[in-house]
């Protein structure tokens, strides 16, 4: 009898260990609502994560709404990655659907904010959600994602750390390149006129002053007073180029170029990764820096 009990106990322990090791080898299921965070998750998680990316490159995340199929995928994830800082207006609904067992990692909320006006003429300010336009913020986001993955899969900690270190180094080299590129531009020409206010973090890191046509989202419409103010600034500061962006209507910018003589520079990727060469963070960032420096030289 004792022998039989011992055999059963050993079998139970063995089965438990087998299940545990199987579970440990399963990739971490990550559900991402940001193109930038999808790249971070893939770089840090490598072969030990399975990332479902829900927002396609070039899609305006300000207007994005998840469909039922997406909510179902998110419900079965181990962790949901959110850009945060109020960018995802659907977060309350998402939290309700996925329930308490899925961890929602609001990456942007752990990164210091710059404030942005909600509407022209008002004093109300909210956190600017476009934190990824600072490479330093990207490096912070990499560490946040690395720590979360390590918490969920402690046995893979060293793997995530090595990947995060490698990707962080690449980001450091990207920042070094960007500083060198921006240094080609005299400081008094670092005036960035864009469609909507998405480049504050970039401006702070690389010494630009921002003048935007629209407000927080590309759908905000500028008042005629604001357009007149911009025309006056562009003439007075002798701004050579103004920039549209992926998800904005360049109509007002075209009017501005016609009246000031400034050129309409290449379109910038403002709300996440783009397509083609801009389909990676490095590609997107290099595109923006080259476009801005080339236009304002």
């Amino acid at each position: 009898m004792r022998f039989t009990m011992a055999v059963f106990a050993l079998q139970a322990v063995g089965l438990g260990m087998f299940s545990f090791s199987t579970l440990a080898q399963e990739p971490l299921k990550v559900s991402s609502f940001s193109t930038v965070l999808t790249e971070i998750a893939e770089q840090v998680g490598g072969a030990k994560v399975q990332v479902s990316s829900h927002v396609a490159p070039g899609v305006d995340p300000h207007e994005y709404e998840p469909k039922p199929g997406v909510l179902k995928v998110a419900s079965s994830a181990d962790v949901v990655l959110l850009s945060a800082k109020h960018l995802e207006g659907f977060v309350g609904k998402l939290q309700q659907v996925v329930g308490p067992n899925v961890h929602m990692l609001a990456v942007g909320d752990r990164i210091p904010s710059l404030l942005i006006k909600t509407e022209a003429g008002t004093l109300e300010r909210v956190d600017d959600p476009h934190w990824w336009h600072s490479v330093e913020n990207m490096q912070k986001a990499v560490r946040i994602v690395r720590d979360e993955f390590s918490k969920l899969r402690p046995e893979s900690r060293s793997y995530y750390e090595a990947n995060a270190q490698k990707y962080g180094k690449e980001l450091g080299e990207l920042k070094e390149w960007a500083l060198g590129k921006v240094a080609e531009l005299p400081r008094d020409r670092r005036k960035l006129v864009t469609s909507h206010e998405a480049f504050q973090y970039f401006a702070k890191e690389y010494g630009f002053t921002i003048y935007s046509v629209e407000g927080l989202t590309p759908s905000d419409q500028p008042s005629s007073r604001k357009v007149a103010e911009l025309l006056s600034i562009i003439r007075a500061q002798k701004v050579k180029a103004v920039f549209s962006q992926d998800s904005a209507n360049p109509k007002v910018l075209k009017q501005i170029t016609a009246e000031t003589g400034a050129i309409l520079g290449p379109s910038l990727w403002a709300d996440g990764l783009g397509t083609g060469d801009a389909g990676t963070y490095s590609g997107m960032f290099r595109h923006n820096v080259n476009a801005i420096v080339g236009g304002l030289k």
Partner: protein
Amino acid sequence: MKGSPLVRAVVVFLVILSLGWPLYHLSKLEEQKVATAEAETKQQVSAEAQLLELELSFTREAKAFEIRHLGNVVWRKEAPGLQESTRLPIVFPKEGVELQIRAELEGSGLSAIRCRLTTPQGDEYERSVWGDGNINAVIPFP
């Protein structure tokens, strides 16, 4: 000399005029040359006054070192000494300048370069950059 005094007077006047014109022209050219030379000297003095003085200290010997301003190489030296100084032909605007430095260093390990910049107005700025291996950095002044 025969003839009407009026005719003689006219002839004398024409002779004087024919001699005077080239003399006037020559003296004017001389004045212009002097003015140009003075302007050139003034420009030279002014350009000298605009030069930025840069003193560099390296903690490790470098194989090559260069400074770029607005994307252009303004100073380059192969195998510079541990202490170097140079004058850079850069205008220092009120917004300040950024110098991009690239140093290819001997050996490996952490090293630093100290840069002391003096503007024509006498303002001094000191910055240090650190790097592991080669150094490639943009230094803002101020």
